[in-house]
C-alpha cells in the first residue's frame, strides 16, 4: 500500500496541476446517483419530459488567453532555469536581471488579469496563450538578447525548444475548429 500511497500522491499532484490549468475540466465529486424508480411490476417509470434547454455560460476567452500566457511564461522560465543547470546549455553574458524582472512582471500581470475575468476557462485559449508565450520568450532570449545557446545536439534541441510553442498553437487551432454549440438539455 505504500507504493499505492506514492502513486496516489503522484496522481494527486498531477491532477491538482491539471485542474488548476483547466478548471472547467474538473469532474463533479462522485457520490449519489440519481434516485432510481421501479414500479411494482419491475418496469422503469417514464422519465419526466424535458421542457427546456439552457445555454451554458460562455467561456472567458480573453481571461483564458491571459492565464495561458501566465502559465506559458512560468513554464518557460522554469524550463530554462533547469536547462541552465545542465551541460546542455551554455549561459552567455547579457541583461539577465532585466530579463528576469520583465518575465516575472509579465507572468504576474497576465495571471492577475486572467483570474479577474469571470467565466469557465477555454482550453483552446489557454493553449493559445501558453504556446504564444513559450515561442516568443524563447526567440527573445536566444536570438534577440542572445542570453544562452545550446551546447549539444543544437539543431534537434533548438527545434524542440522553439517547436513546442507552435505545437501548442496547432493544438489550440484544432480544438477551436472542433468547438461545438454550447446548448444542452436541462432537466425540469
Amino acid at each position, binding site marked *: *500500500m505504500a*507504493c*499505492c500511497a506514492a502513486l496516489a500522491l503522484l496522481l*494527486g499532484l498531477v491532477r491538482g496541476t491539471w485542474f488548476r490549468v483547466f478548471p472547467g475540466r474538473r469532474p463533479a465529486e*462522485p457520490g449519489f446517483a440519481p434516485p432510481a424508480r*421501479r414500479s411494482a411490476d419491475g418496469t422503469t417509470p417514464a422519465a419526466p419530459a424535458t421542457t427546456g434547454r439552457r445555454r451554458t455560460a460562455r467561456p472567458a476567452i480573453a481571461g483564458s488567453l491571459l492565464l495561458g500566457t501566465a502559465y506559458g511564461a512560468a513554464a518557460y522560465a522554469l524550463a530554462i532555469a533547469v536547462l541552465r543547470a545542465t551541460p546542455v546549455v551554455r549561459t552567455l553574458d547579457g541583461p539577465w536581471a532585466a530579463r528576469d524582472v520583465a518575465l516575472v512582471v509579465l507572468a504576474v500581470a497576465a495571471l492577475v488579469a486572467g483570474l479577474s475575468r469571470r467565466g469557465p476557462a477555454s482550453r483552446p485559449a489557454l493553449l493559445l496563450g501558453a504556446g504564444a508565450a513559450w515561442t516568443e520568450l524563447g526567440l527573445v532570449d536566444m536570438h534577440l538578447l542572445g542570453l544562452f545557446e545550446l551546447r549539444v545536439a543544437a539543431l534537434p534541441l533548438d527545434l524542440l525548444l522553439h517547436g513546442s510553442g507552435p505545437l501548442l498553437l496547432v493544438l489550440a487551432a484544432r480544438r477551436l475548429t472542433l468547438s461545438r454549440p454550447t446548448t444542452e438539455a436541462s432537466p425540469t
Partner: protein
Amino acid sequence: MTAVASRPDQGTTVLLPTDVPLLPPATRRSFLRTLASYAVLWLAGALPVALDAGDRTQALGLGLALPGGGLFHAGHPVWGATALAAVVLAVFAWWAAGPTVLPPVVWLLTAVLPAATLDDPAGSAQAAVAVLAVVPVLTVLAAAGHAVRHASQRGRGAALNRRLAEVRFPVTGAPSYPMDFPVVEHTDEDLRRLRAALDLALQPVEDFEGFTHLDQFREGALRYQLNALGYGLSMAQFTRTPAFRGYLAEAQRNTIDKVLQRRVWGYWALENAWGNLRRDKDPVPMGGNVMLTGFYGLQVGMYSLLNDERYFRPGSLTFRWDEDEAWPYDLPALAGNVRANVRESRFGLYPCEPNWIYTICNTFGLNTVLASEQLAASGEAGDVQERLRRSYESEFLRPDGRIVGVRSSHLGLSWNFWASPSVQLATTYWLHPGLPDLAHRTWWLIRDGWLRVEDGRVRTPRSIVSRLDPGSYKVGSDTFTLAVTAMAAREIGDEETARAAEATIAERPVEQRYGTERVADASGLANSYLNLGRFGRRSGLRDLVAFGPPREWRDGPVLDEAAYPDVLVARAVSDGAALDLVLAPGAGPLRTRIGLAQLHPGASYDVRGAREATVTADSQGRAALEVDLGGRTEVRISPAA
C-alpha cells in the same frame, strides 16, 4: 447488526511454516534469470571499457550497465541522475499500469542518446569502474539485507509459533440449516445505506453517475467500484433478504452488465499490448488479468448462488469490443480460466497486470472457483485450493507470517512495504472462504501487533498507508482501512473489533439525499466496502461462497416484485414453504401491490399483514397481494392449513 451464529467451532491450531527458504523455488528461478539477464548488460558495459573501445561505445555500454552510467562517466551527474530517475519512473509506470516495454525502452534511450549526442563522452577509468560496480554492489547489499531480515523474521516466526501453538482458531465448517443461516432485519440506517447502493446500481446500464472516474488501470477503476457494489448488494440479500429478488436482484444484474461495457474492461487491450506484447483484446486470457476475471467471477457467483443460474448459459457474459469482435463467456468459463491459470503458473498465483502477481487478487480467483463449484462442479476446486495454499505458504509468505502482497513474475522481486498490514487486512477477508485457517492466523497477527481497540474505538497507526483511500487516491482519512477492518473482523467472528470499527466510522460526517445515505469524504469504493462489512456476519462470505445458501432459500417462495423506492424490504426469508416479510414505506404511506413467485402452482396460502386473507398461486406459481404500508409492516404467507 447481524447476530453471531452459534454453530460449534472446529478448533484448529495453525502454525507458521518453519521452512520458508530465503528465496522460494519459483521466486529463485525468476531471480536467477534476472541476474543472468543483467550479467549480459553488465558485460556490455564492462567489455568496451576493458577493450578500450571508443568513447561513444564506452558511454553506450556504461549506460546499459547502469541507467545514466554514460552520463555519470562523462561528468554530467545531474543528467545522469535525471536518466536514473527516468528509469525509476518507468518502473513505477510499469507497476502501475503494466507497460512491460517501458523500462527497457527508457533504459535503452538513456544509454543511446548520451552516447550519440554528447560532445565529449570521454571519462576516467576510475569513473567507469565506479559505474560498473554500482549495481553488483547494490545487489550484494540487498541480498545481505534480505538474508539478515529473513533470519530476523525466522526468529520472530519461531517466537510466534510458540504462542500460536496455544491458540485454537475457531474455523467454521459447513453450516447447518436453519441455525447457521441467521436472517436479521435491516435497520433504518441499513436501508438508507442500501438505497444509496441501489440508486447507483439501478441507473441505466450505460450510465455511471455517482461513480468515481479517474483511470481504468488501478484501484480507482470503474470495475472495482462495480465489483464492490455488487458484493455489498449480494451480502445484504444473503443476511437480510434471501427471499427477495425484485429490484435487489435487478440491481446486482445491472452491476454485472455494466462490467461488460467496453469502457470498463477495454483497458486490457492496452495492457496486453504494452505489457505482454500481444494484440489479443480478449479480457479472459491465459497468464493474467485475474483482477478482472477473479473479481468479476465472484460478483457473478454471489448473484448466481442467491438468485438464478442465467450466467451459466453459454455467452451470457459476452465482452463485445465492436460489431465484429466479441468474446462470449459464462461463469463456469470464468472459473475454468482461473483454474487453468493456476495450473499453468509456476508461482501457483498468477498476475493481475502483466507480470505483477498480487496475493489479494488471487483470493478472488479462488472465490470465483468456489462459487462456480457450488452450482456446476468441476471436481478441480480442491486441486486449485491446494496449489494456492502451497503458494501462499511458501512463495508469498515471510517467515514472520506477513503475506507478501505483490511479486514480479519476471524479476522475482517484491517490495517489503507491500507486506503492510493493510494488505493483510483485505487478504484476511477474501481468503476466508477458501483458506479459513490461514485467514484466522493472519487476523490473529494483525490483532497481535497492529490494530488497537481502545474505548470501543479502533486506532489505526498514523501512517500514510492506513490513511489512503484507494478508491479516490486521496490520502488523509482512514475510513477505507476501517471499512476493511469491519469486514474482516466480522467475517472472522471478532465482533468486538467490528463494532469498534463501525463506532469509529459512525463519528465521521455522513451525507443524505433522497432518503439515501453515504459516508462523506470517502470514495464510492470505500462506501461499498462499508456496506459489505455492515451487511456481513461471522463466516458470511465463507458460508455463501464455499457452501452456498440452503436449498430452502433457493427453492422456497420469494418476493419477486415490489415498487422502488415505495416498498423497502427490511427482511425476507423463506423456510421452503412459508414466506416472512418485513416491509417499510420508502416514499411515504401508500397502498401497493407486491408480486410473489416460486409458490406451489395452484396451491392456496394463508396471508397475514396484507389486504387479502388468502391467496392462490397461478399455474406459474405466482400470486399478487395488496399491502397498506403506513410504517413497518410484517407480512406472512404460509400454506393454507
